[in-house]
């Protein structure tokens, strides 16, 4: 295996701390996300995984008590100072833990982002719907009923629809926030397959409670505990020879 001397960086957090009111959620985290990798983020509840995820596309700012210190960068530009929040969210898409389709048709869910960005070309939108649904491995299941309410789909289908909806914005980075937490094993396998296919073109960060899932799909894994990054390394290294005892304890199921 050839190890790049200085691997490229798509996004990075530098000395990043987050508070919600008086509660500190993240403490001085520094790490990089490389292009076209899947970076798994594991750790017990309240370890700051989701806070980190929501820091990357400024979704945190919805919470009025959110405060931060440090820097987040996207292609070396400061996400919180040089870029506009709306722009950041277009370039850094997110898929939430629960499948959250809007109560619209399947088609209108997929085209929601592009339409609001001003895309009017019907032909273009139709193609985008097909492309996005194919990429999310949902096209064959829904191609004949695109006008059906999205809420009628099964949970697993809904979650893949949400992935398609995020893909339709043509983002550069996709954040997955425990995307399979509400899904059965077969749906989970489909979503994981989708992620592996997407890896070729997107930078992916996957927050998961499921350590095995991180092992299955991630290129690298970061382990968080109580708001701190304990360590981050190649997946095989993390699961065979972690440097920190706490990582080993968590992975082997001794706590969390």
């Amino acid at each position, binding site marked *: 295996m050839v190890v790049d001397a200085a691997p490229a960086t798509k996004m990075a957090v530098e000395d990043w701390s987050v508070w919600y009111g008086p509660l500190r959620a993240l403490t001085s985290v520094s790490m990089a996300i490389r292009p076209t990798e899947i970076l798994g983020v594991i750790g017990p509840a309240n370890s700051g995984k989701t806070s980190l995820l929501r820091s990357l596309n400024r979704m945190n700012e919805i919470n009025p008590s959110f405060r931060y210190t440090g820097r987040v960068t996207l292609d070396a530009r400061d996400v919180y100072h040089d870029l506009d929040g709306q722009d950041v969210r277009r370039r850094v898409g997110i898929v*939430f833990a629960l499948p959250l389709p809007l109560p619209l048709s399947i088609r209108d869910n997929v085209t929601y982002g592009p339409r609001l960005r001003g895309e009017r070309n019907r032909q273009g939108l139709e193609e985008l719907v097909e492309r996005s649904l194919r990429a999310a491995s949902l096209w064959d299941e829904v191609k004949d009923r695109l006008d059906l309410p999205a809420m009628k789909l099964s949970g697993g289908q809904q979650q893949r629809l949400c992935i398609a909806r995020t893909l339709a914005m043509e983002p550069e980075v996709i954040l997955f926030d425990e995307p399979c937490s509400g899904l059965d094993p077969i749906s989970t396998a489909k979503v994981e397959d989708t992620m592996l296919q997407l890896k070729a073109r997107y930078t992916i960060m996957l927050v998961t409670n499921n350590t095995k899932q991180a092992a299955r799909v991630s290129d690298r894994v970061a382990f968080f505990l109580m708001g701190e990054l304990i360590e981050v390394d190649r997946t095989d290294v993390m699961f065979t020879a972690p440097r920190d005892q706490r990582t080993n304890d968590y992975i082997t199921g001794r706590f969390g």
Partner: protein
Amino acid sequence: MPERAMAMQRVAFALLFAATALVGLAALAAIGVIVVRGAGALSWEFLSAMPTQGMRAGGIFPALVGTLELVGLTVVFALPMGVAAAIYLTEYARQSWLTRLVRLAIVNLSGVPSVVYGLFGLGLFVMFCRFGTSLLAGALTLAIMILPVIITASEEALRSVPKSFREVSLSLGASHWQTVRHAVLPFAIPGIMTGTILGIGRAAGETAPILFTVAAFYLPRLPRSIFDQAMALPYHLYVISTQIPNIPLTQRYGTALVLLLLVLSLNLLAVILRARFRRRRQW
């Protein structure tokens, strides 16, 4: 259970039941009397004819049309303003002493006696704005009166839209306003409509606010513009019940019945709409 407690329980149940039954009976009796005495007057002619012989005979056409126009105009003013205020309060305003004050004002506004609105409308719209006694002045007065109803209902409707819809929309690169416009407002419309209809029902039935601002004692023609006076059902009922001697009872009860049917059917419509949208709601 000891005997004493059992007896107390029976007494309590009996009292509670009696109170409930009394409420129902009172409502039924009021409606019953009006229906029984007024039903005889109802006819197409009663609804579509001008009043004659100093309102002792003929129909209630101008009062009915006047009320419908008044209420329509009221909605035109109250709905956009009420919904806009509700959107501001729920989606934009941060918690501060100012928004708390505004909320307090809205709550208090709904407790103001309607005759006070009438005087306020007289002072502001009829005299200060020089609209005269007119549909415009009356509708604006009624609009202010039902604003709290519309704002409160709209706020509730907006707040009942899941927070996740807003998050999803923002996460897809929508702006704050686009999110409100496309991911919140459409799903709040049923609730807003219900509140608006209830407000309309209230506006249609009130006498005091229109007393000084729009209502004509006797005007056997339709209003020509929004700057014209108009007859209105509640005021017409007041006039023929107290101001003119020797009016046949059926004339009074017929008018009361039409007003009652109008308001009740509006309320019923609101209930049905709410039930339908609840059933169709997908989240």
